[in-house]
């Protein structure tokens, strides 16, 4: 059941595009609303049981081989967050329905991302398994990225999204590293088991590194100084997103992590001094910067940073003592943690209210610039009232919730000072900075209210604002009321929510009393609050006069500048590095390839001892072979020295014909037949294509150009020689060839084993091979028809074009002997090619050879009578023929499926024909016919395409 609930947001996210198509008239927000509503109701129903101290657990395998599971554990802390996710989720979804116009915005995408975030965040706070927690954690970063970049047309949105992504994912990866280090120490990924092992951990050498890495994750996610810079830029997101992700939930994931890990790291000086230090610096810095902002959302963003720092500092104060030793220290720790949890709830309430109120102001006035706003109190009284509720709670004014948690914060800070926090830095700084931060918090809250709603209208608004519709007002009103209620009736949250949450991270929670009251007498804290009010008001009124309080401080190095510099520097360095080897020169690339080939093969051979050369049982060398070999080597070696193009082509052809002779000598008749035809057709094509290329330049390149080429060529040659030597020297295992030789006739009814392998045993390979050929043919066809845009105006191109035309028109030979003989020879070749096709199963031949033979007859025809004649004599669409051939081959294969045997199974039988006697009929021949048609079609397409080009 719990898994269904936890995965429900994901499920709905997947179905939402479909649903919104089905219910086209409904705003997608209404369709998304069931998810947070279900979460809220379900987790509220778990409240009694979990408050009673029984966590709810469930487990589901995820990657069992790696011992990674979805272990869910709903304890007090997880439940508190789950309720926040569900509760604020409902309000934000409701709010966004009225905020986003479904006719103007991509609302479906918005809600898909929002639901994705909802599920991910829930996973973070409920996972007991560290790897699952990490996965959900990164998923929140991704969904936050998508939501910040919701208006992706705007460059600021994209930049903001990128910044938040880079910083939070950096932290996430660091956190993962920390988790892995913890795993190395404890041999478990379960948080509960790690906590159980916590007392034994501190001595381990990886303990502090793990702690620091996890802290980095928490600090980046919760926007602690100096990683806070992503949060103000994240305000490019639509306001509902800012209210939900960037104030109430996602940015609190870092706090959650710190709180969750507190039982593991509590009592460690590095841990709590980092938390307190980072928290207090962030608290002060954020509140100081917030006071100077002119954009309402930027003000709230810095305020959020500051408040996150406050809670982080409280968690730090609460982890000074692990709590297991009991006594006063334990009490104080518990009190600080309780204050942290309470403030977390308060902050979600008042910051959510304020963000939504700013959204309304933005929506109604078209601006969030504090300098243009003013006097909205009379125009938007309800929005004003709601904002006031939120702002007073934020400022820490009684009787709001914010006041109670701020008093508790002061108390904890004072206790740390009074009871001698074991820190080297002057501990008096703790309450002092806490107090100063609160002064600025009060001041910016005042500024927020008075500059937006107070005073006179600035008259610089583009339109006259009106009160927002009820749908926009209701969600912030509910949250604002909650902010007030949290102060008026603190007991409502204390025992059902805060106490169980505390119990799950602090052992002394049961003894700790929750002093959540508005008044506990004239304590130091009350005087501090009075000072906050007085000094905060003073600072507010001083702002116009003092530049220090108004303008940004001049800084030689800004954090954003640093971020941009590092990013830009990496970009430039990457580009420079890439341009070192990506030179755009094909020669360089092939050099890398061959260089790598040499290194990889030679290194592997040397490392594995794979090169074992045995010269036993070599075949003897006959005179013929020696002659062929010499001719082959001489022809090959002469190619680079050839002066003319024709010579180079002929020499290459000579190499080819020598290879043919080798095929003959080495008992490979099929190969010899195929190669001799291919070689002939190739040389023809070569001459067709290269007749008009410029004269081959003698390789007059410098030695610097040639030497590396030579070395690489020599290296490849040497490595390949070695491989050839090693290859025939021994086999590691029996070849499958014996099977083919034995079974070829019995199973496939063919005596030509090579052909049987091609059409029967490995028929599927052959089928794909002709498809490859087809692709090549169509690529050639497309290439020939290629027309570049710059074709027309070129000067020299015209002349060349004309020259080409002459050649191809004139391929028609005037040789009477050739034309006369051709008429006869062509039919002989064609007949022979058909014989090759059908005899292929038993004798040398087959579809390939037959087709190439047919093609060569047609090439001869076109040479003797011109391509035009061929096209007139054979009005066949060769491209269609190629396709038909592939079709025949595939259908042969499919036919065997119809008969209930695997794809491309062949069968054969014998029939008695009146004249021809006993004949074998095999389906393999039909397959071969397909191959034949394809190859003829393709070869002729290539030749005709080249010839057709004018």
């Amino acid at each position: 059941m719990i898994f269904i609930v936890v995965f429900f947001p994901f499920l709905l996210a997947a179905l939402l595009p479909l649903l919104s198509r089905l219910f086209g008239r409904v705003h997608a927000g209404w369709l998304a609303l069931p998810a947070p509503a279900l979460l809220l109701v379900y987790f509220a129903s778990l409240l009694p049981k979990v408050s009673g101290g029984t966590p709810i657990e469930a487990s589901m395998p995820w990657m069992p081989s790696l011992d990674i599971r979805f272990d869910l554990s709903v304890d007090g802390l997880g439940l508190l967050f789950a309720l926040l996710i569900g509760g604020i989720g409902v309000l934000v979804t409701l709010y966004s329905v009225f905020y986003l116009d479904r006719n103007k915005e991509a609302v479906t995408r918005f809600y898909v991302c929002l639901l994705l975030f909802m599920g991910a965040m829930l996973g973070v706070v409920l996972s007991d398994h560290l790897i699952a927690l990490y996965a959900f954690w990164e998923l929140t970063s991704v969904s936050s990225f998508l939501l910040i970049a919701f208006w992706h047309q705007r460059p600021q949105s994209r930049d903001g999204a990128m910044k938040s992504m880079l910083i939070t994912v950096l932290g996430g990866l660091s956190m993962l590293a920390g988790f892995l280090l913890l795993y190395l120490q404890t041999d478990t990924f379960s948080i509960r088991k790690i906590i159980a092992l916590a007392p034994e951990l501190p001595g381990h050498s990886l303990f502090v590194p793990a702690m620091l890495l996890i802290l980095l994750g928490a600090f980046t996610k919760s926007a602690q100084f100096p990683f806070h810079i992503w949060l103000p830029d994240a305000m490019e997101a639509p306001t509902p997103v800012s209210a939900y992700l960037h104030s109430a939930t996602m940015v609190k994931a870092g706090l959650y992590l710190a709180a969750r890990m507190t039982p593991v790291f509590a009592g460690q000086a590095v841990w709590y001094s980092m938390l307190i230090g980072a928290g207090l610096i962030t608290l002060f810095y954020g509140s100081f910067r917030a006071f100077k902002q002119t954009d309402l959302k930027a003000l709230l963003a810095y305020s959020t940073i500051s408040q996150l720092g406050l809670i982080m500092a409280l968690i730090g104060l609460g982890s000074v003592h692990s709590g297991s030793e009991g006594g006063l220290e334990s009490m104080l720790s518990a009190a600080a943690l309780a204050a942290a949890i309470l403030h977390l709830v308060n902050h979600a309430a008042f910051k959510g209210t304020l963000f939504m109120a700013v959204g309304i102001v933005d929506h109604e006035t078209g601006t969030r610039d504090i300098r243009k706003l003013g006097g909205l109190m009379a125009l938007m009284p309800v929005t004003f009232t709601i904002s006031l509720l939120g702002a007073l709670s934020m400022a820490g004014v009684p009787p709001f919730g914010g006041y109670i948690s701020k008093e508790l914060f002061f108390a904890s800070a004072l206790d740390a000072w009074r009871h001698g926090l074991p820190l080297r830095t002057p501990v008096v700084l703790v309450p002092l900075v806490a107090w100063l931060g609160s002064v600025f918090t009060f001041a910016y809250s005042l500024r927020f209210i008075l500059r937006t709603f107070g005073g006179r209208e600035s008259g610089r608004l583009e339109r006259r604002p009106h009160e927002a519709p009820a749908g926009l007002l209701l969600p912030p009103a509910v949250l604002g009321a909650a902010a007030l209620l949290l102060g008026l009736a603190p007991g409502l949250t204390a025992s059902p929510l805060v106490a169980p949450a505390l119990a799950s991270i602090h052992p002394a929670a049961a003894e700790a009393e929750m002093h959540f009251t508005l008044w506990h007498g004239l304590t130091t804290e009350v005087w501090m609050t009075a000072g906050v009010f007085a000094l905060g008001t003073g600072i507010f009124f001083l702002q116009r006069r003092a530049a220090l309080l108004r303008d940004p401080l001049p800084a030689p190095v800004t954090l954003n500048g640093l971020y941009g510099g590092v990013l830009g520097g990496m970009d430039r360095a990457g580009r420079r590095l890439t341009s070192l080897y990506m030179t755009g020169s094909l020669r360089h690339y092939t050099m890398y390839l061959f260089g790598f080939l040499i290194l990889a093969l030679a290194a592997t051979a040397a490392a594995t001892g794979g090169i074992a050369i045995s010269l036993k049982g070599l075949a003897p060398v006959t005179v013929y072979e020696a002659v062929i070999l010499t001719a082959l080597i001489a022809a090959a070696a002469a190619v680079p020295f050839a002066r003319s193009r024709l010579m180079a082509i002929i020499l290459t052809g000579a190499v080819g014909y020598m290879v043919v002779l080798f095929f003959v000598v080495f008992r490979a008749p099929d190969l010899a037949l195929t190669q001799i035809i291919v070689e002939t057709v190739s040389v023809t094509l070569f001459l067709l294509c290269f007749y008009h290329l410029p004269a081959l330049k003698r390789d007059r390149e410098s030695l610097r150009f040639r030497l590396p080429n030579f070395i690489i060529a020599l290296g490849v040659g040497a490595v390949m020689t070695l491989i050839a030597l090693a290859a025939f020297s021994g086999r590691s295992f029996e070849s499958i060839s014996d099977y083919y030789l034995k079974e070829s006739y019995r199973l496939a009814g063919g005596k030509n084993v090579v052909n049987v392998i091609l059409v029967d045993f490995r028929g599927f390979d052959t089928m794909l091979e002709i498809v490859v050929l087809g692709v090549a043919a169509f690529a050639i066809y497309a290439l020939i028809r290629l027309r570049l845009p710059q074709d027309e105006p070129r000067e020299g191109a015209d002349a060349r074009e004309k020259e080409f035309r002459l050649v191809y028109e004139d391929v028609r030979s005037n040789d009477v002997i050739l034309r006369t003989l051709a008429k006869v020879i062509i039919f002989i070749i064609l007949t022979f090619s058909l014989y090759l096709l059908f005899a292929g199963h038993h004798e040398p031949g087959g579809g390939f050879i037959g087709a190439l033979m047919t093609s060569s007859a047609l090439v001869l025809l076109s040479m003797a009578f011109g391509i035009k004649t061929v096209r007139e004599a054979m009005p066949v669409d060769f491209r269609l023929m190629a396709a038909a051939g592939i079709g025949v081959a595939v259908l042969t294969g499919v036919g065997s499926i119809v008969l209930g045997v695997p794809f491309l199974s062949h069968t054969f039988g014998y029939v008695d024909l009146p004249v021809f006697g006993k004949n074998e009929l095999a389906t393999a021949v039909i397959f071969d016919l397909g191959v034949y048609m394809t190859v003829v079609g393709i070869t002729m397409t290539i030749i005709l395409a080249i010839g057709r080009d004018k």
Partner: protein
Amino acid sequence: MELFMSLAVGILFAVGVYLILSKSLLRIVLGTSLLTHGVHLLLLTMSRLKAGSAPLLGEGAERYTDPLPQALILTSIVISFGVTSLFFVLAYQTYKKLGTDDMEQLRGQEHE
């Protein structure tokens, strides 16, 4: 014989690679052809040369040569025919359209 064949394979590879690394498109295409020949001879040599008669069962011989490399080579010949044709046309069209067959002049632009 295998020894000399290995040497021939090495030479075919070396010349082929040397041609591929040159500037002229024509030499590059010819180089790929030589490389293909080298591969074919290598495959053939792998299974020992002249180990029996041609793999035609009608011969009724005692021993046959290995049919598998031959099947592989046959496939390779046909494929390389297609590829070489494509190269021809590519080289031919390159020269016709761009007016050069010098690979160094056909370098791609940096930082595209």
